[in-house]
């Protein structure tokens, strides 16, 4: 029973990881840049949504406006900063995204301060009782929203003209340019979509665990997700997100207590700490050793 309970909370957080990781894959595919600032967009999205809620907007509207603002922020980043670096080396561009992460953290620190803020109630409180398993509305809503949006985005990418141009730009940017696709604009769209998805992901994380600068750490979880899923595969990011969410939940809820109990019996060690934060990276290292292209990736994708 506890296993099922853990699986459900794991799936809920995992769906949010997937949402945020999607954005990293999207940008990587069409520009080759691994965006280290993705966590920062999640954090910024959470704070912006918080500010909108404080202004008195209804929850749904606040979330939607927050996503729109984040899309603008993503597009602005591409237009103002990254487009000027078109000829720069990819590694330099990635360093710039790392700088963006630091900048956005400082920005939020200056405005909202270092303390954890209680996020306003967005979804109804309480939980449903499903055959002895309790699922809070928060988790349910996070799961539903994140999954719906991820799937909607995948469908958009697969079936619309813009999605098609995105795929072409991702597949072969030079060819796309030659046949008359404005590749830079496609990269802009990728940044906008990526930041909007991350913004929603951040807001959902804030409804689950409160609002603080630490939400930007989600970017670090997202990297194991995309490495496991394959840097090039959107569907891979989705599935790996669920996988890692569940792995974390099980580690925290079952593995850690079991190990601690074992250790207490034989040693003076009382706690194994936040083992659930180590596990994703263990998986990342294992993955890079065994199958560097990820579960769904194609061989030959550059590893960074």
């Amino acid at each position, binding site marked *: 029973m506890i296993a099922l309970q853990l699986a459900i909370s794991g799936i809920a957080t995992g769906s949010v990881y997937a949402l945020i990781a999607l954005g990293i894959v999207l940008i990587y595919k069409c520009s080759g840049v691994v965006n280290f600032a993705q966590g920062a967009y999640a954090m910024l999205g959470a704070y912006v949504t918080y500010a909108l809620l404080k202004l008195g907007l209804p929850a749904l509207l606040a979330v939607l406006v927050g996503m729109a603002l984040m899309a603008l922020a993503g597009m602005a980043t591409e237009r103002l900063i990254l487009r000027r670096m078109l000829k720069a080396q990819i590694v330099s561009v990635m360093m710039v995204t790392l700088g963006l992460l630091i900048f956005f953290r400082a920005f939020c620190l200056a405005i909202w301060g270092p303390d954890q803020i209680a996020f306003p109630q967005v979804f109804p409180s309480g939980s449903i009782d499903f055959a002895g398993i309790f699922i809070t509305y928060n988790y349910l809503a996070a799961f539903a929203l994140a999954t719906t949006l991820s799937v909607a985005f995948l469908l958009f990418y697969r079936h619309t003209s*813009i999605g098609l141009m995105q795929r072409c730009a991702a597949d072969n940017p030079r060819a796309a340019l*030659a046949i*008359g696709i404005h590749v830079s604009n496609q990269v802009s769209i990728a940044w906008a979509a990526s930041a909007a998805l991350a913004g929603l992901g951040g807001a959902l994380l804030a409804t689950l665990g409160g609002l603080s600068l630490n939400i930007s750490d989600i970017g670090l979880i997202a990297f194991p997700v995309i490495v496991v899923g394959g840097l090039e595969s959107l569907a891979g990011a989705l599935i790996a997100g669920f996988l890692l969410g569940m792995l974390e939940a099980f580690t925290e809820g079952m593995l850690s207590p079991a190990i601690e109990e074992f250790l207490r019996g034989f040693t003076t060690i009382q706690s194994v700490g936040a083992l659930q934060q180590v596990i994703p990276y263990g998986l990342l290292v294992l993955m890079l050793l065994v199958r560097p292209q990820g579960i769904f990736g194609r061989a030959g994708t550059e590893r960074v």
Partner: protein
Amino acid sequence: MSLSVRNLSIRFGGVAAVSEMDLDVGPGEIVGLIGPNGAGKTTFINCIAGVNKPDMGEASWKGKPILGLTPAALLRLGVARTFQSVVSLHDLTVLDVIKLGAAAHARHKGGFAAQFLGSDKARDQELCETLLAPLNLADVAYSQIQTLSYGQRKSVDLARALACEPELLYLDEPVAGLTLQEGLNMGAVIRSVRDRFGCSVVMVEHKMDVVMATCERITVMAHGSRIFEGTPAETQRDPEVRRVYLGDA
């Protein structure tokens, strides 16, 4: 006059790839651009298709200057092209590539909203019938580009350019690597495309049989500039053209 190029020159280091080249193409006309290897034909097309920026010269399409425009901007003016070597796209199917052509030009009916919404089955069907069927590609509409033969890929590239509904079409060696029969078929397709869409065509090609059968006027290039212009029959008779192509005889 529709397309008018004057004095176009480009150098790569010490090599004058194209020097003081002129070209005129009338509405609905098919002009063949021929010349020995290294004459600068593809470089010339690249210059007026937005790939290379020439050092000197002017080019206008329907009175608007076109030098220095990007391929995307040229598409909006109705100028599309095909390529000598076909680009490789891993994930996309034939139909995807055709739809890319249709999507890439912003004059597309329905505008921006239509690009966001709908993968329209009816529109797919229409593209299949109007573009893929005449090029014998209808059967492979849902195959990936990589799985096709070289000749089929050439056809896909042409269909992709046609999906842009061009008013001016550059074809860079559309039948190179095809058999003579395939080449003549392609020539017939190009003529029928012109008849249907009324577009002007500039066609770089080596296969003289196809050029003679397809083009209405021929411009001969050698060492980066125009040395002759005339009808196919005149071109075949001209001693200078024979000398350049065949050596002194």
